[in-house]
Structure formats: C-alpha cells, structure tokens
C-alpha cells in the first residue's frame, strides 16, 4: 500500500472519462462528413434506400433501449410504442393538421417522452418483472388506441402521404437527402448515447443497474435516475419513429405492435446493449437479416425467436461485447491528473457530536433487532460498535443509513434530523458507508466506482468533472489501488474490492464514515493493511463509526466503544473500560458471568 506522499510524487497518467466536454466531437464531425459523402452515392429511391432508411430510424430507437436497459438495467418492452407515438405525432400533425414537419416531430417526441417519464414513475414501486409487465400493458394499450381511435389515428388503415420536412435548398423530399438527414441524426444520437455512458448521469444509471442499494448510499436518487432513463429512452424512440414516418410516408398500427418492441429489443441485445455502437451493429444486422434469411421463407420469424434464445445463452454481452471483451485490457493511460487533497473537511477531535442516535428501535415482526439504542459519535473520533453475531450491529447501520425505517428513535447528523430522510439524502448531508457484503458496481471500472463516490451531491467538487477524477484518483492512491484504476472492479480480489468501497466512500469527502465489518473475509495480511489504513484515516481526523468482530482491529483504532447484545446496548465507554467489562466478556465468550474473569 503506497502512502499519499509517494503517490503524489509519482506523476500519474490516466484516461480521464468525461473530463472533456468535446470528447469525440472530431470523430462525430468526421462521421457526419463521411455519411454525407456516402449518401450522395445512395440511390434516390428503391429497396436498398428503404432498407438503409429503416435501419437508420430503427437504430435511433434502439439507442433508447441502450440507455434504459443497457445503462440503467430497466427492462422496457414498449419501445415500439414510443416509436409509434413519434411516428403518429408526425403523421397526424403534418398530414391532418398541416403543421410543419419539425413542429409535428417535436409534438410526437414530446408525447413519447411524456409517456416515457410516466412509465418511469411506475418504477418507483416496481422493478424487474413488474416493470416488464407495466411496459407490455402500455404497449398493448397504445396499439389498441392506435387501432380503435379511428377519428384521430385513421384506425387500422393507417396514415398515408406523410410529407417530409422542407428546408430551402436541402431538397429533403429526395430520398438520398432525407436519408442523409436520418443518418446525421443517428450519428448525433449515437455520439450522445456514447457520451452519456461516461457522464455523471450515465454513471448514476449504471450504478443503479449494478446495485441499487449501494447507488442510493452513494447519494444517487435511484428513482429520479430511472425516470430520466425512461424519459431519454422514450425521447429517442419517438425521434426515431418521427423520422420513420417521414421516411416511408405511410404508417399503420401494426408497425408499432408488441412484436416490433421485441424486434427492437433483439437488435439491442444482439449487438450489445451496453454500447450504442453495439446497438447500431445489431440493428444493421437484423434489418439485413431478412435478406439473408430469405430462403427460410415462412419460418424466418421462428428462426428469429430461436436466435433470441441463442443470443441470451451464448452472447450475453452481444456481438459488440464479444469484440470489446476480447480487446479489453488495462489500457495504458494518458494525461496527467493533479492530485487533489483527499479530505477537505479535516476536523480535529473537537468533541462535538457528529452523529447522534437516540432510542433507536427496529422490530421485524416480533423480533426486536434493535431495542432502544443510544449512541453518539463525536467529531474526529473513531467509534466502534461491537457485539456478538446477531446482536443487531448491521441492522443498526442499515437503519442509520436509511435502508430500514426505524420503529422508533431519532437520528441526527451534525445537528440536522435525518430520521425520515431517504438514503441518498443522508449521503448528500455527508453520511457515507461501506457494506459487510461488498457492494461495488460490478459492470464498471475501479475508477468509475470511486468517481461515483466523488460525485455525491453535496460534495464540494461534485460539479467539476476534472476535479471528480482528481479526487477519485487521490482516494485510490490512499488505498493503494491507483494502478488498477482502469480495471473492471469484478476482476479485483475480495480484499481489494473492499478497498474500492472504502475509496468510494472517501472520495465523497464524508462527515461521518460508517464501516460495516470491513475486516470480514480478509486474510491476516489484508487485515493488517486495513488496520494501517484505518489508522491513517484516523490521523486525517475523519469521523468513523466502525462495526466489526475483529477485536484486534477495534482495539487498534477505536477511541470509544459501544457494545450491543440482543439489540440492546450493554456497554459504552472508553476501550479500556469496555474491554474489561465482565458483561462484555461474557457476551462474547458465552460464558456465565462469574467465570468470565477466571
């Protein structure tokens, strides 16, 4: 483990995610120029043109699935419905109401986004399969309304003669020109989705996907993040659909039915739902596939269904994932990042209460896991909470960080009452924690994990991307993992994943750090390192509440010890007093009290 001083002296090089706003813009410009040149060779009409047009507009919708499913991990089986809302917005607006194409497109996209946000709101209470069913129901209702609200939608006959946008000099009524427009939009959307992944919001989405509980204790508003993911996804769906309506001039309800949602989903999964490039690849392949599978004739769709199963079984990360997984290395890193001071809220042991907990109770049915516990952590102190297995320590931490609602009692952080606050609000006020069973964001790199900690709302540098990286690196330096910054966190050893969790908490510059059994599962060497790390943290004046079994560790670092047994506080005081308390010894050894000192 390297010390801060050593690491600061060694100039570090790192590829800095999201620190540069213009990142990728040159490539985007290049791609757009290439697309414009290429589309000038495109036929002005005909089958090939239609196919490319379909691929381009679908791919925009599929990019939406990358955001909601790939980044945020929320299943949506209604992407065709959003696509259809955009298309009908354009169709109805531009045809029946004679609105300019762009205005109609805006309306369609707006309606789709609105419904997307509404679906996201449903995710407040529902996850997984529930959400899948909500989206299916929504999809079915959209199809039924499109089919039956004949006055507005023309019913099953669909809408014909949808105009294309007209800009002076651009001749968008020409097929090749309109295709160029679609491709340019696609490029911009792909660039945006790619950028999103390494942005603060994108990281929040991935954190929600990988571990909702850890995300909330990192200050991420899980609900808001999901709603945004659904909103962005629906927006892209509507945008693709609107362009689709202009491309084909004719739309009908069956083009946006449940089956099409599955097609869009399959495109995303085949290509690789983690990346907009994968989505692009998948969409292109599946638009071309009918051509290649023409010989299959009427069993084409059956093969399609079988392909979905095979993709799930054999290509969990899609084609793009297959390629990038092969190429993935701990890439050498460019650029120099100035080290940032890690803990700006250095406090001396002032003795004033940092975290005050009074009368805390948590009952699970008849079980009193916590039964009126009082505990005060003083600023700058290392406070240990110990007790035998099942004594209520982890429940205590979970109630303190807001994962459980207390049955009774008060929780105050720096004088502010947090008893009713959501976990992410507590983190915003400066409470940070680690977990007994490690909760890292497995799909992300070590650096990204720690950046999420640095980005916690309420942190002084949360709004400055470059400083976030700097702070994250400083935190990694502190735990000695800077060299592993670009590795996927899942490839680290258990002990090092624990350090990533600690670094993630430290990067958020917390007022109070809660460590839930940090020594659990560590070997002797790692425990020794952890002890040294905790002593250094203590040296920096960080306020810490540590829960652990390991008495050696606790003895090394604690200024104050509270002991729980059967959900009650049985001792509280200085280590010297508590560790010689016969009740405590009896609780630990299970000895009858009179034997304890024998």
């Amino acid at each position, binding site marked *: 483990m390297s010390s801060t001083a050593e690491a600061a002296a060694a100039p570090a090089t790192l590829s800095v995610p999201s620190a540069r706003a213009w990142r990728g813009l040159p490539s985007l410009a290049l791609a757009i120029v290439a697309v414009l040149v290429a589309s000038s060779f495109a036929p002005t009409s005909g089958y090939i043109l239609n196919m490319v047009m379909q691929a381009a507009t679908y791919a925009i919708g599929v990019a939406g699935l990358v955001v909601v499913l790939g980044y945020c991990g929320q299943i949506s089986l209604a992407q065709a419905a959003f696509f259809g809302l955009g298309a009908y917005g354009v169709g109805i607006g531009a045809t029946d109401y004679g609105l300019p194409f762009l205005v109609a497109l805006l309306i369609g996209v707006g309606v789709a986004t609105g419904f997307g946000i509404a679906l996201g709101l449903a995710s407040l209470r529902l996850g997984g399969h529930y959400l899948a069913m909500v989206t299916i129901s929504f999809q079915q209702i959209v199809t039924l309304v499109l089919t039956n609200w004949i006055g507005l939608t023309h019913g099953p006959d669909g809408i014909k003669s949808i105009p294309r946008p007209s800009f002076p000099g651009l001749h968008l009524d020409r097929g090749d020109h309109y295709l160029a427009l679609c491709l340019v939009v696609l490029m911009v959307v792909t660039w945006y989705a790619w950028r999103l992944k390494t942005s603060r919001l994108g990281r929040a989405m991935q954190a929600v996907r990988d571990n909702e509980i850890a995300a909330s204790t990192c200050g991420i508003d899980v609900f808001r993040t999901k709603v945004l993911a659904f909103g962005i996804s629906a927006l892209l769906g509507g945008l693709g659909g609107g362009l689709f309506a202009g491309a084909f001039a004719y739309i009908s309800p069956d083009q946006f039915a449940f089956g099409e949602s599955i097609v869009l989903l399959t495109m995303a999964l085949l290509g690789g739902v983690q990346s907009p490039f994968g989505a692009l690849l998948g969409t292109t392949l599946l638009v071309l596939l009918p051509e290649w599978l023409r010989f299959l004739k009427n069993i084409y769709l059956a093969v399609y269904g079988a392909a979905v199963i095979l993709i799930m079984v054999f290509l969990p990360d899609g084609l793009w994932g297959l390629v990038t997984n092969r190429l993935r290395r701990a890439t050498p890193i460019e650029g120099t990042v100035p080290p940032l001071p890690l803990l700006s809220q250095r406090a001396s042991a002032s003795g004033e209460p940092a975290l005050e907990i009074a009368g805390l109770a948590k009952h699970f049915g008849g079980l009193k896991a916590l039964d009126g516990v009082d505990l005060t952590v003083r600023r700058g102190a290392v406070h240990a909470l110990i007790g035998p297995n099942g004594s209520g320590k982890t429940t205590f931490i979970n109630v303190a960080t807001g994962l459980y609602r207390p049955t009774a009692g008060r929780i105050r952080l720096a004088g502010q009452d947090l008893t009713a606050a959501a976990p992410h609000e507590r983190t915003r006020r400066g409470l940070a924690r680690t977990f007994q069973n490690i909760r890292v964001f497995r799909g992300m790199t070590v650096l990204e994990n720690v950046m999420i900690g640095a980005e916690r709302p309420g942190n002084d540098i949360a709004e400055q991307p470059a400083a976030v990286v700097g702070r994250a690196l400083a935190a990694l330096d502190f735990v000695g993992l800077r060299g592993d910054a670009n590795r996927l966190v899942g490839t680290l050893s*258990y002990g090092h994943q624990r350090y990533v969790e600690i670094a993630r908490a430290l990067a958020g510059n917390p007022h109070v750090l809660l460590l839930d*059994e940090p020594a659990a599962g560590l070997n002797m060497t790692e425990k020794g390192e952890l002890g040294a790390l905790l002593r250094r943290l203590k040296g920096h004046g960080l306020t810490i509440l540590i829960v652990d079994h*390991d008495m050696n560790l606790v003895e090394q*670092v604690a200024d104050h010890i509270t002991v729980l047994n059967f959900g009650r506080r049985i001792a509280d005081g200085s280590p010297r007093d508590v*560790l010689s308390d016969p009740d405590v*010894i009896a609780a630990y*050894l299970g000895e*009858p009290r009179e034997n304890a000192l024998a």
Partner: protein
Amino acid sequence: MPLLEIADLRARYGAADVLKGLSLTVAEGEIVALLGSNGAGKSTTLRSISGLVPNLSGSLVFDGRSLIGLKPEAIVRLGIAHVPEGRRVFPGLTVRENILLGGSNRRGVPRRQLERETDDMFNFFPDLRRLEHALGWTLSGGQLQMVAVARGMMAKPRMLLLDEPSLGLAPLIVQQVFRIIASIRELGTTVLLVEQNAHMALSVADRGYVLETGSLLVSGKPDELWSNPEVRAAYLGGLAGGTGATAEAERAQP
C-alpha cells in the same frame, strides 16, 4: 479410520480463498467443535462437506468415500445431515411437514414409517408437539432451532453438521440447545459443530479446532484450547486482559 477426514481442503468464492488447505478429522461418535472468528471459514467448511461449495480442491473423505464433486442430495444420502446457519426452516410448511421432509434422503422408506418417526421426534422434542401444525414463519428463534435439529435427525445421519445453533438465542435457550446436542451423541450420532459461543461449544465437545482465515490455528481437547492464550486472543482480541492503550497511542500520531 476416522469417519470424516479432510486434508488440504481449499475453497474459493469468486476471487477470494475462503479455505486455504484445511485438514481435520472426526472420529465416529465424537462431538467436534469448529471455532474461530467471523470469516474464519467455519461455515464454509460445513458447506464444503455438504456439497454446497462448487470450487473445491484437496481431499474430503467420509467413511472411505470422497465427497468432492458430489451433489448435496447425494451427500445427505450417504448419511451427513446439515443443519445450516439461520435454521432455514421452510416458512410455508408446518412444523410436522418440515420434520417429515427431513427424511427425504432415505429412499424407499414408506411414508407411513416417516410419519411414525416424526411422532417419535416429538417425544424427543416435547416442546414442539404443541406446535405440530404451526407454520414455520410463526416460530421463535429457539423453536426454529429445535425444528431444524429435529429435521436433521430425521435423516438418520451418521454425522450431523450444526452451524451456529446458538446464534441469536437467549442464554437459557442456548443451554437447552446444548443439552440436546449432548443427548444426540448419546444416540450414537457424530456431531461436527460450528460455534461462536466458545464456552458452550467446548462444554460439550470432545475435541475442538480453531480456524483463522481459512486455515487451522490450533486443535486439541477443550481444556487445552481453553487455556491456550493464542485461542483466547484470536477469539477475544483485546478482551482477554487487553487495554485500549494501543488505540490511545495511535491518537497521539497525526
């Protein structure tokens, strides 16, 4: 020949080595206690014996047969019953049904006989009789532990693995559980017991092993272990005559 012989056993969970070359033996008719702090690998040892840990290497021999690679269903048929940590009583089944299912490993035994043995079990655990038709989720911790042990005994095991039977129980109930463990041995069943509660465990055990982070620290008879300072230190850290001096010394540093 010992009934169970473990040599150089290694187990991995993900990236972590949980057992690092553990060796121990259990003779027929013994009660052997596995002690050690949290994360020492005690539960993993029991789970390895029962076939719940996939990546094992080393040797794990029960009654002359290697258990490595066998499924849990096959291992319990050889006569090893596991009463896991947390009791794991089926919440939606009644006490009687839970106990009855303990006999699932004995193929070909007719249901009527299993029902009769379940009745016998209520003689052994008289407190459970009035709870016969109560659903699992309605029971208290002590009752759950009784049901879990009774269910394990229904397998007619040659060896019973008990994981943390005293966890979360009030002291009086803990004593009751340990009286039962002692009486199980009277029936001729070998017991391998994992416990945090060192005092209770060593009060019934013939021998004990103390683990630390996946390997053996020390083994011996209860009184040897009890008086071994290393054991007390591993278990108690600063509690055994320690002081907060180290912590205070640390605070003086920047």
